[in-house]
Structure formats: structure tokens, C-alpha cells
């Protein structure tokens, strides 16, 4: 699914597709010599005592070893899984200290069952810091660029872009010949060009600059800027080179600016999508039913906690659990909504302002209930693999997957809701009941039933929003409070009772916010958006998509 989306987007932005076949280039494993392992074990044991600088040289030693274990060892190191048993200095690999997990010693065959966190006292970790990790990453890049999978080669190539001095020029040429993946090929070529930029021959440098034209990888720009600084425009011999560099930089800058606009738009839309999700449920409970639902935020919160619970039940399949959470959150929040409606709200029809008081009370109760049950701390909701990270539209424009999913998800939810409201008998009953309860009843509509289900629907959708928000923000007792104000703003700004208005309002507020933000900063941007809302309402006192005519005045 993610591949498809990526493809669509790439196609959309006229950029080369990023997924290609996953060929694995491998080289025959080096002969495992016991001596090598002993040496490695020695290094590892030494590492426990050494400073981080020493560790960097030790990493290089490990990388130059011919042992088959070196790759795993480097990986364990970066992943912080290498420990020494305090009692006998035996290295162990430990992924987790929870009871039942095991520790295995890579240099012997010993496996130890762990009893729980307390065992931490018996092992000391071989610590690495960012510098050591960076060193390992560079070493791994040099290895992976030769034998890695396509993806590993790709990231290795990009790593080389940053540290292009690390690798010999002839080696790149050699790699370029073998490389089949067009993207990796392109990056390697850039690496080569960047090395040539430092060449002593002007012809080669000019060629390199040409090659770097329109490349949006940030290191390229840095290198060109650096290069420009080293040139003297008044020197006739360098004028051409100077101008070419300048021109190249200008064109890169130009493209970056375009990217910037596209990115702001994307940010705006994704912020809009979040606002939309948060507001949709309210568009039902408030927009359609007229209940000033101060507990709306808590319905969102319940959805987020449901996501957490589902994830606790399915700890090993985060992706599935997220999908399962959607109906689960709908049910949980929806049910709470139904109970709320039947027990409290139904006594308040015709007294809309008092719903504010009651739902405010309910919101306090729900917040405290969650705090009492789950504690005051935020809960961890993991992000599935396919939602994490970015996709690259072009090297200068990487957009986040999760936002894309959320944009699509919010539109789907809205579309579904619009279908229900506009196209089903239930939707019709829903609207009729809120417009005139006694008369709706006289048309044979079970108003109590419809009220409960409508409120349940609105609440359920709020719950679904909670699933999405759990991917972006705190899952804690205050989650709801953070969204309630914005939700009301969106619904009202769009025009109460108008789903289409809610969509446009959410998106335009999101985009406006993100357009102001680079100009004025986050705080002022928010203030500006609020002022904008205030002024806009003066022009359209009933929101963006106000219903007009007698129908609303009567």
C-alpha cells in the first residue's frame, strides 16, 4: 500500500520512482578464523573501559577484521545491545531485561535466562555515543555500499555524500560500474562529482559543477557554497567557473524555494487534516444536534487510549493493532457517547446552553477517570513501520508518511460521514429530529433512538480521530483539552451544521497557519489566525458556508 502511494505521489510530482527491485549484491563470506574472534572478543572487552575516542579507533579495528561476526557486532554496538557480565567480563547480547528474555554470549555458546530488570545490576553496558555511532555508520556504509541490499546501498550512498572524502575515487568508479539501481547510481555519481570539485584541474571541476546542476541533496549545496568561497571572481581564469557555480547555486536555490512552497502547503494540509479529524465528530454532536459538547475532547482521548489498549493486547503487530483500533475506538467512544446521551443529554433537549454545563461536568469526570485508571502520565503508542519516516518526492523535498495517511484518513472519514448524513434515511432522521423533535416523532421517527445513535456516531468519530492523534501527540488525560477549542473554532468557522464547511474551514485554517508560521513564528501565526477568524466572521456572520434565507432565520 505504501509503495503504491509513494508511486502515485512520485508520479504526481514528476519525479523518478523510488522503488526498484531489491537485488542483493553479496560477496562470499570471509573465512572465519578462530583467531579473529578471539581478537574481537579482546577488543570488545577493552571497549568497556575505553573512552569514546578510543572506541572510535576500536570500531575501525573491528571493521577491518575479517571475522564473519564483525557486521553483527557493529550492529549490536549501534543498537546498544552489547553488555559485559560484571562477574567474568564475558560479552553478552541483551535486547531486553524483562523477565523471560535471554542473554546470549556471542563468543561462547552460553545463553542465560534473565529474571527481570534487577539483573541490570549484573551487567554493564558497552556504551556508545553519537560519535561512535557515526563512526560505525560510516564503516557500515563502506561495507554496505558493496554488499548491501538496494535500500542499504541507497542510504550508504547518501552517507557517502556527506563524507565523500572517506572513499577513494577509483573505488567509486568501480562501484558505479557495478551499480544497477538508478537512484544509487545517481547518488554515487554526485559523490564522484563532489570529489572532482576538489580536483586541481579546472576542466574537471567545471565538469563536476555541471554534474551537480539541479541536484537538491543538501551536501551538494554546501559543497558548492564552499567551492564558491574558494574562488576569486576578479581572477580572469576563474570567472567562468565562478559564474557557473553561482548559476548552479541559483538554480538549486530556485528549486528549493519551490520545494519550500510545496512543503508549506503539505504542512498546512496535514495540520488541516488534524483539525478536521478533531472537529468532524463535533460537527455532528454540536453542528447537527446542537449540543455544546465540552466532552468532545474526552471522546477523542478515549479513542487514543483505546488505541493504546489495543496495542497492549497485540504488542507484536503494531500495524494490525492500529487498524483494529479504528473500529474499536469508534465503538468505545461511541458507546460512551450513547450512555452519555441516554443518561444526561436527553433531558436537556430544548435547553442547549445547559448541555454546556452538563458536558463540561462529564468532561471533568472522564479526565479524572482516565487519570485514575491509567495514571497521569502519557502512554506510549507505537507507530507502525509503514507510517514512520518520509518519502522523497525529490532530494530536496521529503514528506512524512504519517501525515499523508492522516490527510487521506481524514478525508475518508469525512466522506463516509457525509454519505451517512446526506444519503441514508438515518441521516435524514438525524437532521429531522434535531430540527423539530415532536414533529419528527409524529413522522414515525423514534427520536430517542435516533438521538442516542447520532450522539454515538459523533462521539465514535471523535474516537476515531483519537486513533489518528495518538500517532502525533501525547496520549494522556489532557489530550482532549488540547483539541476542544480548535474543534469548536473549525466547526463554527465553517458554518454550523455544514460538513463541507467544516472541511474547508479546517484546511484553510491549517494552511493559513502554516503560511503565517515561517513569516511570523508559531506564536504570532496562531494569534494571526485567531484574529483572522474574528475578522472573517464579521464578513460572514454565519461562517464560511452559511445557510441563507428564511430557513435559518425562522
Amino acid at each position, binding site marked *: 500500500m505504501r509503495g503504491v502511494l509513494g508511486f502515485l505521489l512520485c508520479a504526481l510530482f514528476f519525479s523518478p520512482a523510488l522503488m526498484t527491485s531489491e537485488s542483493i549484491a553479496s560477496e562470499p563470506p570471509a573465512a572465519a578464523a578462530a583467531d579473529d574472534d578471539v581478537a574481537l572478543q579482546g577488543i570488545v572487552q577493552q571497549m568497556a573501559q575505553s573512552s569514546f575516542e578510543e572506541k572510535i579507533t576500536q570500531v575501525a579495528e573491528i571493521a577491518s577484521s575479517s571475522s564473519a561476526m564483525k557486521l553483527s557486532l557493529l550492529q549490536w554496538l549501534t543498537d546498544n545491545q552489547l553488555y559485559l557480565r560484571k562477574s567474568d567480563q564475558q560479552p553478552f547480547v541483551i535486547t531486553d531485561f524483562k523477565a523471560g528474555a535471554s542473554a546470549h554470549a556471542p563468543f561462547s555458546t552460553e545463553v542465560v535466562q534473565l529474571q527481570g530488570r534487577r539483573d541490570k545490576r549484573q551487567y554493564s553496558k558497552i556504551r556508545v555515543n553519537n560519535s561512535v555511532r557515526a563512526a560505525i555508520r560510516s564503516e557500515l556504509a563502506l561495507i554496505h555500499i558493496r554488499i548491501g541490499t538496494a535500500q542499504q546501498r541507497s542510504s550508504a550512498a547518501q552517507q557517502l555524500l556527506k563524507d565523500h572524502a572517506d572513499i577513494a575515487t577509483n573505488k567509486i568508479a568501480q562501484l558505479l560500474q557495478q551499480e544497477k539501481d538508478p537512484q544509487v547510481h545517481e547518488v554515487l555519481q554526485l559523490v564522484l562529482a563532489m570529489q572532482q570539485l576538489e580536483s586541481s584541474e579546472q576542466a574537471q571541476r567545471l565538469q563536476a559543477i555541471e554534474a551537480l546542476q539541479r541536484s537538491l541533496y543538501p551536501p551538494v549545496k554546501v559543497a558548492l557554497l564552499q567551492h564558491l568561497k574558494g574562488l576569486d571572481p576578479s581572477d580572469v581564469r576563474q570567472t567562468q567557473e565562478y559564474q557557473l557555480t553561482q548559476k548552479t547555486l541559483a538554480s538549486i536555490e530556485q528549486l528549493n524555494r519551490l520545494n519550500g512552497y510545496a512543503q508549506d502547503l503539505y504542512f498546512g494540509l496535514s495540520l488541516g487534516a488534524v483539525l478536521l479529524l478533531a472537529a468532524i465528530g463535533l460537527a455532528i454532536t454540536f453542528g447537527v444536534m446542537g449540543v455544546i459538547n465540552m466532552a468532545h475532547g474526552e471522546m477523542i482521548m478515549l479513542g487514543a487510549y483505546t488505541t493504546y489498549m489495543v496495542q497492549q493486547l497485540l504488542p507484536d503487530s503494531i500495524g494490525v493493532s492500529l487498524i483494529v483500533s479504528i473500529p474499536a475506538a469508534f465503538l468505545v467512544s461511541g458507546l460512551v457517547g450513547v450512555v452519555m446521551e441516554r443518561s444526561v443529554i436527553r433531558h436537556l433537549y430544548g435547553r442547549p446552553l445547559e448541555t454546556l454545563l452538563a458536558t463540561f461536568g462529564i468532561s471533568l469526570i472522564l479526565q479524572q477517570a482516565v487519570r485514575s485508571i491509567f495514571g497521569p502520565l502519557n502512554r506510549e503508542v507505537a507507530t507502525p513501520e509503514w507510517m514512520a519516516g518520509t518519502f522523497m518526492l525529490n532530494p530536496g523535498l521529503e514528506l512524512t508518511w504519517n501525515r499523508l495517511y492522516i490527510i487521506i484518513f481524514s478525508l475518508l472519514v469525512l466522506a463516509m460521514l457525509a454519505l451517512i448524513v446526506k444519503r441514508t*434515511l438515518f441521516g435524514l432522521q438525524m*437532521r429531522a429530529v434535531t430540527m*423539530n423533535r415532536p414533529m419528527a*416523532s409524529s*413522522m414515525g421517527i423514534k427520536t430517542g433512538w435516533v438521538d442516542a445513535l447520532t450522539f454515538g456516531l459523533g462521539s465514535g468519530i471523535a474516537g476515531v480521530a483519537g486513533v489518528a492523534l495518538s500517532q502525533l501527540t501525547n496520549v494522556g488525560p489532557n489530550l482532549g483539552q488540547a483539541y476542544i477549542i480548535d474543534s469548536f473554532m473549525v466547526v463554527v468557522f465553517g458554518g454550523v451544521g455544514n460538513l463541507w464547511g467544516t472541511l474547508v474551514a479546517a484546511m484553510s485554517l491549517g494552511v493559513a497557519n502554516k503560511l503565517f508560521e515561517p513569516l511570523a513564528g508559531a506564536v504570532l501565526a496562531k494569534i494571526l489566525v485567531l484574529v483572522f477568524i474574528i475578522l472573517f466572521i464579521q464578513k460572514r456572520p454565519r461562517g464560511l458556508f452559511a*445557510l441563507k434565507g*428564511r430557513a*435559518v432565520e*425562522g
Partner: protein
Amino acid sequence: MLKVNHLNVAYGASQALYDVSMQAEIGKVTCVLGRNGVGKTTLMKALAGHLQPVNGQIRWRDQLLVGQSAAQRAKAGIAYVPQGRDIFAQLTVEENLQTAFSALPRGQRRIDPEVFALFPVLQQMLKRRGGDLSGGQQQQLAIARALLLRPKLLILDEPTEGIQPSIIKDIQAVIELLRDRGQMAIVLVEQYLEFAAELADDFIILERGRVVAEGPGHELKQSEQARTLLAI
């Protein structure tokens, strides 16, 4: 047949109907008359289920209605055209009509073209919001909507109010037609004596919440009592 026995209805502390009894037979039009504020609408609301009586009984085909919701009554074939129209202002004309589907079995959920024959303006304005219609158009919509419920008991509270003369004539014809089909009891509140007198098979007259006169329709026009009761 509809039977009302000793009905008392109050708004909070103030009582509006005292010991009202009446009946309406299938195949007949029963007219309820009286001056402003005597309790006609109150009685209709009690029949439709919008007001619960303090005490007294309402029976429809030997079934006790008191305690049943308006929706249950609608499903039992009671349709109500309220005074002041009460159409769903923000629903389109079509949607207003479709609300009647709620009381109908799945198979019968369509808008009977007969309605449009009677009120052609509604067909022209299907997509307009009910609230945007003119007063008379809304009244027509309210009647049409009630007819779509395929009622056995039709309650009409001043249905001719605000309707142009030619359509009043049509409505009169329809009511006669419905009555003559003999499958429906019709309760009609009307101030417009001429109209009432022409349709009424039976009538009752209310005064200050009490039934003060009743009789067969043909007596209405001649009845001196009726004249004085309806005068000031």
C-alpha cells in the same frame, strides 16, 4: 374509531382541557370548533402524542394511546398536520416528504405521485428548503407530508390557514375523497365555518377547555348555539 374519554390536559400548572370527550369515526370528518384559545390545538396535540394528558383516555381502534409516543402513534396510522405547519425548515421539500418513510415498511417507501397532483407546487420546489417556502406552500407541504404516512386517522389543525382559495377548494375535495374512501377517520380543527360546515359529518365545539356543544355536521350551519359560541 377514535374515542376520547374525560380528558384533562394541563400546561404545567394551568389546565387547558377539562373533561373532554369526543369521538371520530372512520369514514367521517369530525370537526372541532371554538374560538381562539379554547383548547383545540391542545386537544389535537394530546391526540398526536405531543402532550400527555393529566388523566382521561384516548382509544384508537380499541387500543389505549395514552402513554404511547408520537412515533408509535404515527406507525399505528395517526398523521398530524399541526397548526403553524412545523415543517423541517432546513430539509428540502423532498427530504421533508421522505421523513414519512420512517413510519412505513421498506416496500412502501416512495413518494406517492398523488401528492404532487394535489400540490403541484411541491414538485416544482422539490430541492428548495422547506423553510424558504412561502407560508401557504409550507402548509401544503405539511399536509402532503401527513398524507404520505398513509394514515388511518388524519388530524388536521386549521389546514386551510394561509392557503389560497383555489387550493382550499382542492383540499376540500381531497378530504371528501379520503372520507369517501371510507378507510380513514378525519379530525379537523377549523375556524372557517363555511369550510367546516361543508365537510363536517360530526362536530364538537369547545369553550374554555370544555365541550359545550356537539352534533352531526348538517346541524352546524343552522345551529344558533354554534353561531353564538363561535362569535365574540
